[in-house]
């Protein structure tokens, strides 16, 4: 790869989705003299935040309380969330959401002009702000358009970051990135770096995640020595369209939709999720119950129904039905119009007249780059926020509508802390960092542009095998054997990865090269997921072991920390205790009367 000129800024943000843009604005606004670089492999408005549908949680209504939001989050997380971080998150959430409202987000409104809220799974009280059912789209575009106001935010659109640059004092000072248009690898330097690259759903074959969600930032941090935390916790959303994996938002159940099996029976009532109230009952949909149970439980119920032979077989695998018909056309069009559009276009079903076929689909990675509650990693000057990071507020199962709020709260916070670090640590050695970026360009050229190497394997061959290994080995239910098999396949794929050859050895917009680099990221992330899952011999939240079916707080009320090994051996797994402040681990109950009992909080 050609070596490009070096660019210098104060803070470098890798990723232009919700978290990266919020961080950019936080720095640009509070530090007008700072130059902020926003480096993204796509144009920011293409970022995956754009697909989020249902909403973003924050206490705004008088019938809600911060304490309820905290408790719902902690119990939803099966007590693996750090309670100090959850408190910070919940306390900051309303301010951040109001800020985004001030920046023009078109929130749906009540007749009096205040923002409207809807219930989501695992919530005691409705607190999800929404912009119809395109909440992520509107949040992303509002944030992106707001960044255009700040002349000190410099965008590097379609720049694919491949490596973090660390100075002689161990501080992170930028990244090497390929400018896609020219294929030039350049050093983009700054005094601090924030990774906001999102999730890694593309490790699995059946996912709501767009093609860009390949865990690049997680992989870069992992290779820089930062632990990937709690990677065994992967969220399956219970309602994806078969075939495509397109998400049908939880808001469809928040508005009253029901899940039924092949007999038309509301099977969730058989799994300790409460009573099936009639859809005409004014108490339906009941919060923290039935269809408004948490995502991990609902996805697990699907598998049990399948084992019992009560799901519906289709050419795209087994499904259950999400029935919205009783909501009526007017409500569907007003509250969840995108659900209707997607169902019609991609499933050939109009939910006004027919139930939607759905099945669980990989949606979100609870784990990620280990950060503390200041969004700082173990490498000085390196921060992370959003889905790529693990604070952790999501623990073993994220509550629906907490992730969009998380982008704002921790994006802003990472921005503030990175700016402070940049002010306190201004000096670094440019030639040293430039040399690292030059090495990176040479490494990429050696690895991928060697035309003497022929007859290697194609990217798709390895990617497909990785998908099969993860789906078979590390899906909704796992055991030691299935996970061990996944670990072995991933190790084999890591070996074979070096022998992948490309058709394309040109510079301009080489998306076969970026697909190969993305495959490398996926293998790193999969390795951390599978090995962390093997070691956690308990069942908690989204991590369900058929050979260890109970939660084990004595041994595993702790975050797993996977450390990359440079010699090619499996990651080292360590544990870090969960921060428990006021909410001791308890039974995770849903159904009538569940939720915070005053006596549980001390």
């Amino acid at each position, binding site marked *: 790869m050609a070596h490009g000129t070096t660019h210098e800024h104060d803070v470098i943000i890798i990723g232009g989705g919700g978290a990266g843009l919020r961080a950019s604005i936080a720095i640009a606004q509070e530090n007008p003299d700072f130059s902020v670089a926003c480096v993204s492999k*796509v*144009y920011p*408005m*293409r*970022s*995956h935040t*754009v*697909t989020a549908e249902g909403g973003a949680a924050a206490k*705004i209504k008088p019938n809600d309380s911060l304490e309820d939001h905290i408790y719902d989050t902690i119990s939803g997380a099966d007590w693996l969330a750090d309670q100090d971080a959850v408190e910070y998150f919940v306390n900051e959430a309303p*301010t951040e959401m*109001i*800020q985004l*409202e*001030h*920046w*023009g987000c*078109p*929130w*749906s*409104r*009540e*007749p*009096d*002009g*205040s*923002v409207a809220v809807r219930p989501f799974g695992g919530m005691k009280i409705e607190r999800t702000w929404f912009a119809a059912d*395109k909440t992520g*789209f*509107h949040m992303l*575009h509002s944030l992106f*358009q*707001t960044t*255009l*106001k700040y002349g000190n935010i410099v965008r590097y*659109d379609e720049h694919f970051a491949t490596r973090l640059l660390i100075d002689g004092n161990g501080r992170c000072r930028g990244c090497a990135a390929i400018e896609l*248009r020219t294929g030039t690898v350049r050093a983009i330097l700054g005094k601090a770096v924030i990774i906001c690259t999102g999730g890694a759903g593309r490790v699995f074959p059946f996912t709501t995640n*767009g*093609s*860009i969600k390949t865990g690049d930032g997680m992989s870069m941090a992992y290779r820089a020595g930062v632990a990937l935390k709690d990677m065994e916790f992967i969220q399956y959303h219970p309602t994806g369209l078969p*075939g*495509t994996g*397109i*998400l049908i938002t939880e808001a469809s159940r928040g508005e009253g939709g029901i899940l039924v099996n092949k007999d038309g029976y509301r099977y969730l009532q058989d799994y300790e999720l409460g009573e099936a109230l009639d859809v005409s009952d004014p108490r339906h949909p009941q919060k923290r119950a039935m269809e408004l149970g948490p995502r991990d439980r609902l996805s697990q119920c699907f598998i049990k129904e399948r084992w019992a032979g009560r799901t519906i077989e289709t050419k795209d695998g087994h499904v259950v039905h999400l029935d919205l018909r009783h909501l009526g056309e007017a409500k569907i069009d007003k509250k969840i119009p995108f659900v209707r*559009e*997607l169902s019609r*276009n*991609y499933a050939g079903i109009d939910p006004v007249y027919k139930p939607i076929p759905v099945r669980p689909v990989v949606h979100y990675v609870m784990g990620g780059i280990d950060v503390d509650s200041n969004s700082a990693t173990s490498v000085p000057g390196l921060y992370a926020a959003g889905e790529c990071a693990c604070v952790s507020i999501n623990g073993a199962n994220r509550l629906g509508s907490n992730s969009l709020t998380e982008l704002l709260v921790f994006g802003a916070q990472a921005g503030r802390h990175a700016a402070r670090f940049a002010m306190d640590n201004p000096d670094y050695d440019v030639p040293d960092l430039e040399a690292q970026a030059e090495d990176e360009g040479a490494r990429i050229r050696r690895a991928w542009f060697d035309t003497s190497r022929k007859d290697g394997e*194609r*990217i*798709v061959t390895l990617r497909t095998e990785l998908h099969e290994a993860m789906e078979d080995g590390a899906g909704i239910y796992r055991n030691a054997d299935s996970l061990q098999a996944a670990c072995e396949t991933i190790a084999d794929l890591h070996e074979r990865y070096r022998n992948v050859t*490309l*058709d*394309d050895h*040109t510079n*301009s*917009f*080489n*998306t*076969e090269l970026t*697909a190969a680099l993305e495959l490398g990221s996926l293998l790193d992330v999969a390795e951390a997921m599978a090995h962390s899952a093997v070691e956690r011999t308990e069942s908690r939240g989204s991590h369900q072991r058929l050979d260890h079916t109970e939660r084990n707080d004595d041994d595993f009320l702790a975050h797993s920390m996977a450390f990359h090994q440079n010699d090619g051996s499996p990651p080292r797994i360590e544990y870090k205790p969960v921060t428990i402040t006021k909410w001791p681990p308890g039974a995770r109950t849903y159904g009538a009367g569940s939720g915070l009992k005053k006596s549980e909080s001390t």
Partner: protein
Amino acid sequence: MTMSAQQTMTIEVFRYHPETDDEPRFQAYEVPYDEDWVVLDALNWIKDHVDGSLTHRWSCRMGVCGSCGMMVNGDPKLTCAAFLKDYYPRPIKVEPLVNFPVERDLVVSLDGFMEKLEAVKPYIIRDDVNDTSGGEYLQSPAELAQYKQYSMCINCMLCYAACPVAGHEDEFLGPAALALGHRYNKDSRDQGQSERLDVMLVGEAIWGCTFVGECTVVCPKHVDPAGAIQQAKAVGAQEYFKRFVAPKGAGV
């Protein structure tokens, strides 16, 4: 998808590489036919299995990220929403969006659009100091409805490819950018209309539009940029009159 007795169809793809090609060319590929597939699936299949050098943008494959707009048999389309079954068994011709410079194959340059978007100041402008302590700005459902549809633009650029003016008149800001500028002008929380009109009323920026209305026809998200431009022109005409024909204090 079963490969036995697989039906196939032909996809003809526009190819151009700035490093090696003087002229664009077309390359035909045989792809498996699956009635559930969209044009984007066929392109991805070609890239994965046949020709890794084929270059196109995509991400969400659910019609909201706006990456995969291309010309499909001459019409601007999101390829994630253009089903093979609507063309089968005839061949499908895929080209980059017209009215944009081609970077490589099906990838076009968005530089011009990004400048135009920035020019219309697509963000809330207010005189008061930003302060979140007073809670949200109230906005009634009726006020929301004033601008909501214009906020649905995914920046997919199909409207620029459909517009007969956008390709020839550089000064024209184009359908999406004008609709987004108008979106903020119509937002009850905004006070920046005058600043935006400073940009929109210059030269051909808005006046270039000849009301063909193709932008509205091709919009995959049912935004009505033509309507936005018409409304904005009406506001602009009044403003133009106030500013230049009868300036403040002239007693009109």
